[in-house]
């Protein structure tokens, strides 16, 4: 197999951890590092997984139907939730940022 050499610089701490992991599996530090890099390259090349929207729909759509909850009602509730989150989490801190800008 054709191989190419790369040199990487790592902290003594990381070096020690990799050494320990390699020793535990009785493989060389080189083999361990190649494995890790191969996994990283594969993860980067794969497209991101699709969000499970269909799976969520499979139980939430029947739940809404069973509760006789209309889309308009639920969206109205979502607006109320947005207001609640704004008031509880953001309003005060954001106003503190907007205030000084408005005064300048």
């Amino acid at each position, binding site marked *: 197999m054709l191989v190419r050499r790369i040199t990487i610089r790592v902290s003594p701490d990381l070096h020690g951890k990799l050494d320990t992991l390699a020793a535990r599996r009785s493989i060389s530090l080189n083999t361990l590092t190649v494995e890790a890099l191969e996994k990283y390259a594969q993860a980067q090349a794969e497209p991101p997984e*699709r*969000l499970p*929207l269909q*799976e969520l729909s499979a139980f939430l*759509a029947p*739940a809404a139907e069973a509760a006789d*909850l209309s889309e308009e009602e*639920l969206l109205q509730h*979502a607006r109320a939730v947005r207001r609640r*989150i704004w008031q509880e989490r953001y309003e005060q801190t954001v106003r503190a940022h907007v205030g000084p800008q408005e005064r300048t």
Partner: protein
Amino acid sequence: MSGKLLVFPDTGVLIAMIVYPRTRYGALSLAGEVLELYQTGAFGMVIGQSIVDELEEVIDDRFAAQRGRMVSLLKPFAGQFTRRPTPAEIAAVSSACNDPTDAPIFASAVIARPDIVLANDFEAFHTPAAKSFWQQHRITVESLYGLLCVFGRRQRRETPAR
């Protein structure tokens, strides 16, 4: 623009896609058609943690029994959700919002850097000020109907359809 279009959904359209993919008569809704497109891989989706926060609260309030199931389904994707905006980031976008409560979502969308913001709330996301804001950030704003037009499933109309 290269590669797959990246869409940032507002909470309302996400709810419509998940909870109301079909009309009460069983036909596919606009949201259902968009969900189908997503499932076929026509576009990618980027979701903000702020959207997930709202979604979880809505489900918790109205479908409490389903919350655990939803949380466990979303958990493996937590790393994909874009971070919540800071107060300074929210303050910076507030002038584009009719309603200040929408500012965290506008700021989340900017952080996510999508090609398209998908929202059916015309009074919030499609106003001239909001459109100009999205344009400044090189983001297009589309309704569910508009997104179907992007993919050739519908024809653009002069009056935006909701």
